[in-house]
């Protein structure tokens, strides 16, 4: 049960403001989710560097020599840039996924928040305002981002239980709702070899998408399939390296508002999350249809908006 915000920029001139805009949207959703908050932010992908975002309860100790520890594993230059309890490891392009698996051995106390070429995820327990401040999200730039404020229903209020969940390279997912078959699905996915960390229902949804995509589905196809295989109530907002998607369950009780202008596509659990966006008065504002997958990509054309699949 939560608040979701998302912002997908079409206009490059807004990229420097992405963090400022998302921070404001996130804080507006505090009432819907006072337990924890998180943000996934997509920067410009580099052809030479991939990124692993890590978190530690004891960052002074764990981050001190992490870059040196990691260097032999990736066989190239590694840099570490820290933000509070999180740090981004920049590693040679294409080595992030293997590193994610190996990190457990060299740094068992460090937890991977995300990996990919453009994605960084920051999330912690606490009020959205405080979480946004400790990571200085307002200072971040990028092409698109997704934020989440959580009111925990059944699983623990922890950093790992916070959203967004990383679902695969440069993929992330946030959720508002409550899944009713996540326990069975978690067992099935674990048998399929998918790593699932928590008892959180959303992580199961994220892992489900990862599994579908590992077995050949596109993200759009995986989302379509999720409508059959996930039971319960959900609004999902997902991010990919250059895309942004939304899907609601067939009953569609949990709130969702979208806005689109020539400059951006935005998502909010409530309209008030969108009120400070530039030009919102002139935006096309609507609510996504139930059981319908929406997807936007940067791609080649300026506004390749539309439903996937």
């Amino acid at each position, binding site marked *: *049960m939560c608040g979701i915000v998302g912002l997908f920029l079409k206009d490059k001139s807004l990229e420097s403001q992405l963090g400022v805009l998302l921070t404001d949207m996130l804080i507006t959703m505090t009432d*819907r989710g006072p337990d924890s908050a998180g943000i996934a932010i997509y920067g410009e992908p580099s052809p030479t560097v991939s990124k692993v975002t890590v978190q530690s309860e004891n960052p002074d100790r764990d981050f001190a020599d992490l870059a040196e520890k990691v260097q032999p594993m990736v066989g190239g230059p590694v840099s570490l840039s820290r933000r509070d309890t999180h740090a981004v490891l920049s590693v040679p392009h294409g080595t992030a996924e293997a590193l994610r698996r190996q990190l457990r051995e060299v740094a068992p106390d460090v937890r991977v928040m995300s990996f990919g070429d453009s994605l960084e995820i920051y999330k912690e327990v606490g009020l959205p305002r405080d979480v946004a401040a400790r990571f200085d999200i307002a200072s971040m730039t990028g092409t698109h981002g997704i934020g989440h404020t959580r009111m925990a229903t059944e699983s623990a209020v922890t950093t790992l239980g916070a959203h967004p969940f990383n679902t695969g390279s440069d993929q992330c997912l946030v959720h508002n709702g409550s899944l009713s078959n996540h326990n069975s699905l978690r067992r099935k996915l674990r048998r399929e070899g998918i790593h699932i960390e928590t008892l959180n229902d959303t992580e199961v949804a994220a892992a489900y998408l990862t599994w579908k995509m590992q077995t050949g589905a596109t993200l759009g196809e995986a989302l379509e399939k999720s409508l059959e295989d996930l039971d319960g*109530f959900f609004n999902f907002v997902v991010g990919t390296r250059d895309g942004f998607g939304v899907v609601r369950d067939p009953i569609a009780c949990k709130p969702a508002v979208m806005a689109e202008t020539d400059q951006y596509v935005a998502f909010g659990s409530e309209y008030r999350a969108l009120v400070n966006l530039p030009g919102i008065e002139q935006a096309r504002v609507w609510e996504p249809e139930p059981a319908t997958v929406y997807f936007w990509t940067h791609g080649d054309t300026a506004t390749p908006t539309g439903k996937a699949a």
Partner: protein
Amino acid sequence: MTVKDNKENAPPRTVPIQSATFSNPINAEIRRAAATGIYDIRGGGAKRRVPHFDDLLFLGASISRYPLEGYRERCDTRVTLGTRFAKKPIELDIPITIAGMSFGALSGPAKEALGRGASEAGTSTTTGDGGMTPEERGHSTKLVYQYLPSRYGMNPDDLRKADAIEVVVGQGAKPGGGGMLLGQKISDRVAEMRNLPKGIDQRSACRHPDWTGPDDLEIKILELREITAWEKPIYVKVGGTRPYYDTALAVKAGADVVVLDGMQGGTAATQDVFIEHVGLPTLACIRPAVQALQDLGVHREVQLIVSGGIRTGADVAKAMALGADAVAIGTAALIALGDNDPKWEAEYQKLGTTTGAYDDWHEGLDPAGITTQDPVLQARLDPVDAGRRLRNYLNVMTLEAQTIARACGHNNLHNLEPEDLCALTMEAAAMARVPLAGTEWWPGKTGAGF
């Protein structure tokens, strides 16, 4: 001769044995279902035996603790509900309230009797899925107005007339289900109050029409507070299923009071399969709910009302010892009014049932005139007499609870604690998290004995 000889010489035969699995009642139900094609509908709560307050005992005081004098020394019973946010909390003389029961499910005189009895005993009564009647408001000094998914008869004037508002998310008899009122009971007045055609079978929604989940509930509670100037305590009532999470989420959504109804809690009508197979026994609900309140640091600040199978002062005292601030009674109150009274046995027989088993409240044929809209039948219940019986019963329960509290050395019912209790069975020990009698252990307990 020959015949007799044959019998005497025949080998011994197997005695006919009833199947425990396919028992006569089960087989009868299979035949009934096969003949009618519809599930069984009835009123009341779970009839199966489940671990209950009877499986707990109080320890009492002796040398290590000192008891209070039964008639002389003070043992306070007052409780204030809604101290968290409401400007006008409800103050009750006794911690036993009357649970929500609708006009429609119950007759007008029965509702009046509940109001009279509760008022005389210094406690509150509660509306139900059908709106507030002027009679009910008039005869209840403290009236809790239920805010239900159906919103039958819901209006801002009655909301402001109420002393508290109870947002009903679910009830113990049917957690996850909506109300039912069958055509026999949709009289002209009930139909008008609910804005429904007369005589239809009414099935209410299981979810509220305009919110789903705790994040939305927080906004709904804000609206209700804004409409009522932040004066009224807001209760949130849930059926006992996931009491830890539901209590925690009600608190996060801004409730002043959490009402928790276990599976023995009654209903006017629902599917028998719902009543008997969904939900937790009341005994199993209380500790997880109290744990949630304690984890959030609001135990006693957000009050907990427990209901579902409360019958005696001992039950009241045990619920409070486990951490409840008050209890609510429904079925017991109806019995005090005269429901299932042996004096109607001949009429119960005509209905194919017997005293103590009559639960077809939805059919509207209640010989006692309580669960009916039939003018002739309902005239059998004198609201003044019935109200007096309810008052007497509430007073007895209070005296009983005080007796126990004093014997345990407490000058206030709210000072009863789990350590005053022991359990007779492993099941009750596990559910109530109190030691099995004579031991210092309960199933699931870890760590040192004391």
